[in-house]
Every structure is written in C-alpha cells, then in structure tokens.
C-alpha cells in the first residue's frame, strides 16, 4: 500500500490540495461535532438520525468520486445490503445491535470485494454502467429472496441493548450511538484522505497514466478505495435499519443511488464536509416539504441542474473557495 513516500503536492489553496491536517478543518470539525451533540434539544432526533446516516453514506460515496474520481451508479447496493443483513441479524438471529451492525458492514464489504473485482478495471461511464448493472442484479436478488419479504421489507426490527447496557429504545441513547458511529466513520474517511494512500488516490484521479508511470499499481489503490467506500456505505445502511427498525427495497433501488449522487453534488464533490451538508439539506427538504408532493422531486431536479450549470463546487465547495481554504 503506502510506499512511505509523501507525494509532494503543491497547488496552493483549492480543492484537495492540502496534505497536512489544517487548523481550520479541525475547527470546522469541532463546530460540527458540538452542533450535533446539542442538536436534539431543538430538532426532532429521528430526523437528525436519518440525516446522519445519509451523511455517512454520502461521505462514503464522496470518497470514491471526490477523491478517487470514480462515479458509481450502484452505491445503493451496499447501503441496502448493510440494512437487510443488519435487520435480519437483529430480528431473526437475535443479534445485539452492535453485532448486527458489524455483520451488515461486513456483508457490504464482501459485496464490495466482488463488485470491485468486476468493475474496477473500467473507467468513466463504463464504470458507472457496470456498477448500475450489478446494483440492478442485487435489487432483483433482494426482491426474490424470501428473507426480505419483498416490498413489505423486514419490519419490527428490535433495537435491542447496546453492549448489554444501553437500551436503544430510548431515543437519546439511540441518537448518541448513531452520532458516535457517524463521527467514527467520518474521522476514518478524513484520516484516509490525508494519508499517503489518500494522496496517491488523488494523484490517480488527476492523471492515472502518470501515476502508473511513477510505479503505483493504480488498480489496487482504486480497488481499496472502492472497498472502503462500500463498507462505510454498508455501515450507514446497517445503522439506519436499526434506527428505523425497518429494511426495505427502497434502500437498494437505483433511485437511492441517484439520491446520494445528488447529496454529494449539492454539498460539494471532493470536499470534506460537503456530503454532510448536502445530506442534511436533501433530507430536510424531503421531511419538511413532504406535503408538497411532487414539488420535492421537481425541486431536486432543479437543484441538480443548477448545481451542474452554475454551482459545480457545491455549498461547501463554494464556501471553501470564498474563504480560500479547503473544507
């Protein structure tokens, strides 16, 4: 993996250029963490938990596209696999929540290995189409498999007691558990981005032939990034299944893959905090504007169009550009 060499990147302030952990990102992280710790006092915790799960999902997705340069159209397969396996483990096998979530994550990682082996040799649109094809096949599998109960989904999943002590039926206990999972995942991604591995990944995204000529086995790096992204997406899905006590076909449908693209694009591709913001905005739109019915879909479409035409850096990207510091 990492050759121990630091790849010197000096491109001034801008997206993905910094290698050191910079002070302002630490401050941003602290602000975010404190905000989340205090939020349940004013905002309905169930909404926050949903947003946190999707934020983790978007961060995982962003790892692949923002830093690896690979657009996956099938990420829902990892999210949904995590959800289904965790739900089944908790409900039918009676696993305690921490093991159910671990199992879901492991299942998603395994799927990531298989999908990665098939997809990683392709680029651009072909990579996207292979991931879409695989995701459709996974969707079909879950549709047919009896354990998922088709469109009813796996319902009444028990939340259980965490580590034998914390009763997750208490909404605050559940919330802080989800927050802990999210922060852990976020920090892991952060660490990866700012490691030598992350540097090579960025180099590959910028110019793969050059990275190859420098001696890096680019396929391996991309594969590992894919695997990590898949596993973390599975973690997000597993946690969501325990929170909502439900795993359904929506989580593996291709429109879910489209939604995570939207969240990441809106927040800012390739930024650290972008996916979190993007996820919150989209989930807030869906929750609070749900009475408007179809206008939510139309609004999402408009956001896509505006982001692509005029707002390509996304919310955090524009903010970072304005502050001249990468976020």
């Amino acid at each position, binding site marked *: 993996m990492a050759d121990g060499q630091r790849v010197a990147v000096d491109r001034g302030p801008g997206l993905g250029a910094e290698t050191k952990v910079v002070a302002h990102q630490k401050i941003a992280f602290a602000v975010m963490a404190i905000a989340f710790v205090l939020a349940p006092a004013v905002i309905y915790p169930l909404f926050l938990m949903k947003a946190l799960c999707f934020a983790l999902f978007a961060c995982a997705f962003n790892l692949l596209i923002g830093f690896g340069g690979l657009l996956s159209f099938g990420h829902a397969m990892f999210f949904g696999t995590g959800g289904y396996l965790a739900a089944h483990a908790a409900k039918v096998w009676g696993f305690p929540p921490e093991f159910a979530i671990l199992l879901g994550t492991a299942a998603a990682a395994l799927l990531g290995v298989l999908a990665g082996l098939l997809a990683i040799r392709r680029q651009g649109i072909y990579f996207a189409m292979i991931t879409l094809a695989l995701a459709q096949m996974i969707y*079909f599998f879950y549709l047919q498999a009896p354990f998922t109960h088709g469109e009813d989904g796996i319902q009444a999943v028990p939340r259980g007691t965490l580590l034998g002590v914390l009763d997750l039926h208490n909404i605050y206990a559940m919330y802080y558990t989800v927050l802990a999972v999210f922060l852990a995942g976020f920090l892991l991604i952060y660490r990866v981005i700012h490691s030598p591995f992350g540097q090579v990944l960025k180099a590959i995204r910028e110019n793969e032939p050059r990275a190859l000529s420098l001696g890096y086995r680019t396929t391996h790096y991309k594969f590992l990034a894919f695997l990590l992204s898949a596993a973390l997406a599975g973690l997000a899905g597993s946690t969501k299944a325990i929170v909502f006590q439900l795993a359904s076909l929506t989580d593996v449908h291709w429109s879910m893959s489209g939604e995570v693209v939207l969240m990441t694009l809106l927040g800012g591709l390739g930024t650290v905090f972008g996916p979190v913001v993007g996820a919150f905005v989209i989930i807030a739109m869906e929750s609070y504007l749900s009475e408007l019915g179809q206008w939510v879909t139309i609004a999402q*479409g408009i956001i896509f169009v505006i982001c*692509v035409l005029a707002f390509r850096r996304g919310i955090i990207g524009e903010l970072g550009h304005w502050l001249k510091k990468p976020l």
Partner: protein
Amino acid sequence: MTEIFGVPTQALFGQLLIGLINGSFYAMLSLGLAVIFGLLNIINFTHGAQYMMGAFCAWFLLNKLGVGYWWSLALAPVAVGAFGMLVERTMLKQLYKLDHLYGLLLTFGLALILQGLFRQEFGTSGQPYAMPSQLSGGSNLGFMFLPNYRAWVIVASLVTCLATWFVIEKTKLGAYLRAATENPTLVQAFGINVPRMITLTYGFGVALAGLAGVMAAPIYQVNPLMGADLIIVVFAVVVIGGMGSIFGAIVTGFGLGVIEGLTKVFYPEASNTVIFIVMAIVLIIKPAGLFGTQK
C-alpha cells in the same frame, strides 16, 4: 406439437415475435441515444422523459385539438425535438468542455423536473389513447393472434432505424456530422456551422424518442413515469451495442427484445433484470460494447 424445454414450439414463436415487437421500441429509443452520444458525446438521461413527452403530445393533440394519430406521428416528434433543441442551446452547450458525467447529471436532473411536472399535472393513473382505427384488429397467424398495430410497430421501427443509419453512415450530411465530432474546428474552418449542426442533431435524437412515444401511446398507458424505468434499460442497450455505434444500437435493441421475450417464458420474474446481466457480461468481456470502438 413439439416442445422446447417444456414450451410448445408454437408458443415459442409467438413469444419471439412479441420479443421483436418490444425490441422495436428498444431499437428506436436506443438509436436516438446512440446518435446523441455517438456523435455529440452527450449522455442524454432525459431520453425517457422525452419519450414520455412524445406520448403526451400525441394524447394532447388527439384529445384537445382533435388531431389524429397519423398527423401526431409527424407533429409530436417535431415538438419534442424543438424542446430538445431549446435544452441544448440553453443548457447543454455549456457543458461540452467538461467531463461527460456533468452532462449525465444535468440531463438526469432535467428528467426529474419533467417527470415531476407531468405527475403534478396528470397524476399517475395514465391517460387512455385510442388505437387508430386503420390499425385495430389483427390477424391469426396460426401460432398466435397478432394485432395489426404491433405488426405496424415492427415495420415502422425498422424503416426509421434503417433510414437513420443510412443518413448518418452513407450520406454527405452524415459525413459532415461525423467529421464535426472528430474535429470541430477544422470542419468549422470549412464554413460549416458546427454548433447549429450539433443542436439539430440533438433535436433529431430527441425527436426519435418522441416518435417512439407516439407509437407507444395506443398500446401502453400514457403516464408520466412511462420513461423512467425504461431509460436505464435503453442505456443498457446502448452500452451493450457500443456507445458510438448506430448499427450496434439497432441490432442490440432488437436482439435484447428477443432475449427479454424468451426470459418472460422461462423465468418471467427476471425479465426486467436479464438485460443488466447481459450488460455486465459484455462490459467485463468487451468493454467497448459489441460493435463499439474504444474511444
């Protein structure tokens, strides 16, 4: 009666014919997509919504203006094509210098907007569209009853596909177009208005989608979501055929219709998914597609 895998041969022929009919739609739609991608390098995710607009246009023409099917076959594609050209002029133009994937995201967003607007207006129950009287009824072919309209669909689709292929591959206009994609500056230096050509070509590809929509109106429900699940299938067809290849799109469209038809007999639940299985296999073995060339 002989049987193949437990299905009587007569019934099998019927299914193959039906597969060809469905293949006609796939071919026409993927043709439009292939033209747009192959010549313009735009990934047009709005294609499904434009197909839907063609069907709604026909419905509107018939139910509000009293204009019949045969006129709609000409008018609706023009209307949808004009809409497409507007989209190209105002939005897509700015994305040519960027990564393809932005084009995909933009057109995906457009599809969401269009589908949302139509749903808001029309709901999802679908609108009925009357079968044109000249094509109703059918003939008994012995192994199945073939509605006349469905036979017409195969014929019309074949004619449209072959005509398009001919224009692009064999005529001067097509040659200009192909040259313009390879080297726009040089072609422009020869005095040909490249941007206008690109706009017209996008409009043409979109018009093909609209035409497919009109043809679908009498037999499928005219509803705002008719293109939504179809678009990823059509994409798969184009990818399998080879993203730049017109011929590949046509052949794969018909071929996949047949494969899907056979799946409906032997394992019907999988009929929506078999196309993706084929796509995954093709992409792994021959990533440029069956008839495509690696760009």
